[in-house]
């Protein structure tokens, strides 16, 4: 039923921005974050996260929470009847109801290499029974969507069943990822290569106009069923009660239009927010964040303006990685470990965070990120404390001394010790990092060169193992430690494990945690894995970013979510809070 999807008085427009351009709105083909922000409001996955619950908690979306077989290998979803796609010529004027078969189709699209190499295929590849065979068959022909897959079936119109080769308790998370949002086959087939511009989903919004990499306008989807918010009740889950209060009793979406501009310079978006050209400023530039809330408290003058201010750690991590097969910086013998450890001791994490990140980050202690299962805020990297004296001592002991008297340390065999840091020219702000690394290493007598290449060559070089030392970052695909630890899993070397770290104990533990549901024992195994990483230093963990988000007083219901998605669904505008002149200006536009 189309009940009050437009409950709100029409004309409510939220102005916001993206700091980087989107690429397109086909979930199967686009894996960049900002495309995701848009299609997360258009397409609906089976499950979703509760908007306000922390830690992230799954709640039903188009389907109820799945039935999970005791062996953790079979997942059965019941899709709610009466959910419709927004109207589109592809449906020939008919209302089109969502069915289980749509998800079967959608998930298969995610692994079809024809979709630009299928950037999301890791979510199902190697897991679902019968799917890998189908992918292999598609290698020399078209992907066959029609033949049945044993592990991915619509049991009836509303029942979807997923069967796995091995237990994986992350499947519910995966089925909550925006990329698994459901698409309709008619639409995909109708628009062909133009599908990026024609997202047709069941979600609260639909695409109104799109000027690529400049301006995206979403409007409320009139076919949307409408939703209300009631907090999930589960143990250990907390809420922002204040926001919950404001959402109480309303039917969403309340907004008529969402107007998104691409504003790539931090200064520009900050200025735009100040002049109320945008209502919402997620992810404030670090400098501005500091300005707005110098001591983690909104500055007085902004409090007076009534700004809403949020500061939260994100579920991501930045790190530096060594190429473990490299003859100089790689290797597992004590002398090799010592070199990497010395470098990690020369890295002043605290200073990095205070100067480069303006304190807008947590000092990372393990390869894990906050806000996810298995993250332990108490865990400390006891081996990674900044200590140049100790670093020098270590280098001395293992023979990395200055042989030729040029002031720089050499390898134990007196060959010159030169390390090259690989970075890309399109990485914003990498200069600071490089300056810091070069200085830090110079302090302990190691010369660091930098090699800057364009972004694509950088990605390729890193992937192909043509580097010694490089930066890296990872954000969650789903809120579980496994999603992070996979980056260091030996058998993943060269695919997701760019540093090619191989450690038998680590790998054994990984295999274990990958197939078990969360538990205290599992958490201890994760800590052990972190200790191994901190001891062998394939990575120097750097930071978990803290983001500051701002909203003007007339934006109601905003709360940043750890999944990094905008959740426009729950936002509203309170005209009464808006200055009259601004309101008038908005009305006239």
């Amino acid at each position, binding site marked *: 039923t189309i009940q009050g999807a437009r409950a709100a008085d029409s004309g409510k427009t939220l102005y916001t921005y993206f700091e980087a351009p989107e690429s397109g709105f086909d979930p199967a083909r686009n894996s960049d974050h900002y495309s995701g922000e848009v299609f997360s409001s258009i397409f609906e996955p089976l499950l979703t996260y509760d908007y306000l619950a922390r830690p992230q908690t799954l709640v039903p979306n188009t389907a109820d929470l799945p039935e999970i077989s005791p062996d953790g290998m079979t997942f059965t979803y019941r899709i709610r009847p009466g959910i419709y796609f927004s109207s589109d010529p592809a449906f020939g004027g008919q209302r089109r109801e969502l069915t289980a078969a749509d998800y079967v189709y959608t998930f298969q699209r995610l692994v079809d290499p024809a979709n630009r190499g299928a950037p999301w295929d890791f979510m199902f590849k190697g897991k679902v029974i019968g799917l890998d065979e189908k992918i292999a068959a598609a290698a020399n022909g078209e992907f066959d969507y029609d033949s049945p897959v044993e592990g991915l079936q619509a049991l009836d119109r509303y029942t979807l069943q997923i069967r796995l080769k091995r237990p994986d308790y992350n499947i519910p998370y995966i089925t909550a990822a925006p990329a698994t949002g459901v698409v309709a086959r008619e639409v995909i087939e109708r628009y062909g290569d133009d599908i990026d511009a024609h997202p047709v989903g069941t979600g609260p919004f639909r695409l109104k106009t799109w000027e690529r990499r400049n301006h995206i306008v979403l409007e409320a989807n009139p076919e949307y069923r409408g939703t209300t918010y009631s907090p999930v009740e589960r143990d250990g889950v907390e809420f922002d009660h204040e926001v919950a209060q404001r959402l109480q009793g309303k039917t969403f979406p309340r907004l008529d239009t969402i107007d998104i501009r691409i*504003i790539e310079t931090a200064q520009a978006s900050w*200025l735009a927010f100040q002049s109320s050209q945008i209502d919402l400023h997620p992810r404030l530039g670090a400098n501005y964040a500091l300005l707005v809330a110098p001591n983690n408290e909104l500055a007085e003058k902004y409090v007076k303006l009534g700004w809403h201010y949020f500061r939260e750690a994100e579920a991501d991590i930045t790190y530096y990685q060594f190429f473990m097969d490299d003859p100089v910086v790689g290797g597992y013998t004590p002398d090799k470990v010592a070199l990497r450890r010395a470098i990690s001791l020369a890295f002043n994490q605290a200073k990095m965070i205070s100067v480069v990140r303006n304190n807008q980050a947590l000092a990372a202690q393990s390869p894990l990120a906050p806000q996810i299962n298995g993250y332990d805020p108490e865990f400390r990297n006891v081996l990674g404390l900044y200590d140049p004296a100790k670093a020098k001592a270590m280098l001395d002991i293992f023979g990395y001394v200055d042989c030729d008297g040029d002031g720089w340390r050499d390898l134990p065999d007196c060959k010159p010790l030169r390390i090259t840091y690989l970075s890309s020219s399109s990485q914003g702000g990498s200069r600071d990092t490089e300056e810091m690394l070069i200085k830090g290493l110079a302090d302990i007598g190691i010369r660091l060169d930098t090699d800057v290449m364009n972004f694509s060559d950088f*990605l390729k070089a890193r992937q192909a193992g043509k580097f010694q030392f490089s930066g890296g970052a990872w954000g969650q695909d789903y809120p579980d430690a496994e999603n992070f630890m996979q980056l260091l899993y030996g058998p993943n070397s060269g695919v997701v494990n760019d540093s090619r770290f191989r450690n038998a104990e680590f790998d054994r533990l990984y295999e274990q945690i990958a197939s078990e549901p969360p538990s205290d024992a599992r958490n201890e195994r994760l800590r052990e894995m972190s200790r191994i990483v901190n001891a062998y230093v394939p990575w120097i963990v750097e930071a978990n970013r803290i983001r500051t988000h701002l909203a003007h007083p007339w934006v109601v219901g905003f709360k940043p979510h750890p999944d990094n998605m905008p959740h426009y669904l729950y936002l509203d505008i309170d005209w009464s809070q808006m200055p009259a002149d601004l309101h008038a200006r908005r009305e006239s536009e």
Partner: protein
Amino acid sequence: MGRYFIRRLWQTIPTLAGVILLVFILFNLFGGDPAAILAGKIVSPERIATIREQLGLNEPLWVQLWIFVKQVMTFDFGDSWSTGESVADIISQKAPVSLTIMVQVWLLDAIVSISLAVAVAYRRGSLTDRAVMGICTAAMSISLLLYVVIGQYVLGYTLDLFPVLGWSDSLWTNLTTYAPLPVFLLLLVSIAPSLRLYRTFIVEETTHDYVRTARAKGASENRVMFVHVLRNALIPIMTNMAMQLPGLFVGSFVIESVFSIPGLGKEIVAAVLRSDFPVIKAITIYLAILTMLVNLLVDLLYSWLDPRVQLK
């Protein structure tokens, strides 16, 4: 005249071929691999291979070159690799945006600098002249980026005379609201060199004997300046203005990035950073053709303004 055109168009072919070759070599052999960027978070070799296959990057180089040549001949550059949008659409969306700013700059620059040039050329050698020229040199020497950083901060932010940045879909809003500050800042940098150049042209003309003749005829100084000198100086001035035309389409990427104006200049830089070869190819070729057309136009203009020049 007609034959002249045909000959000139014929002559553009080698240049175009050169441009094709240059762009092809620079970006195919030395540019980045777009597949790596398109591959997403996990850049596996197989995925890169698949994407390369889909983009046609695994074809032999000469086949790719031939495809490029065919694209140039049919003016169909296909779709952007990174966004899938048709390249023709990208250009037809972005170029007008750059033009909205640049045409204003172009016209205002011409009006202001020609009038000032006449004024100072008339007083050449005087203190005013020297001062204006000195100011021009100074203005020219300072980096555009400094103007932009300071201009945006002071005029847009501190004094709030202009919106700090932005762009809308309405031409009118753009012209009245968003364009003025960028236009003003660009004018600051562009007037100085034009003014100097135009002054040189005018002063150069005043040294000619026909000026003396005009005075000997009894023409007033104003008449000498405007009817005789300026009419002749307009030949190089208009030529210079015409030469600026291709640049108008490119826009100023500094301005466009800082003010978030979705123009072609920003697009070019973005395309290079993303190794979006179809976009790069198309923009280069379009601009090369435009440049050549403008050269032709300049010749026409010349023959129209200067009776001594005949097109053969």
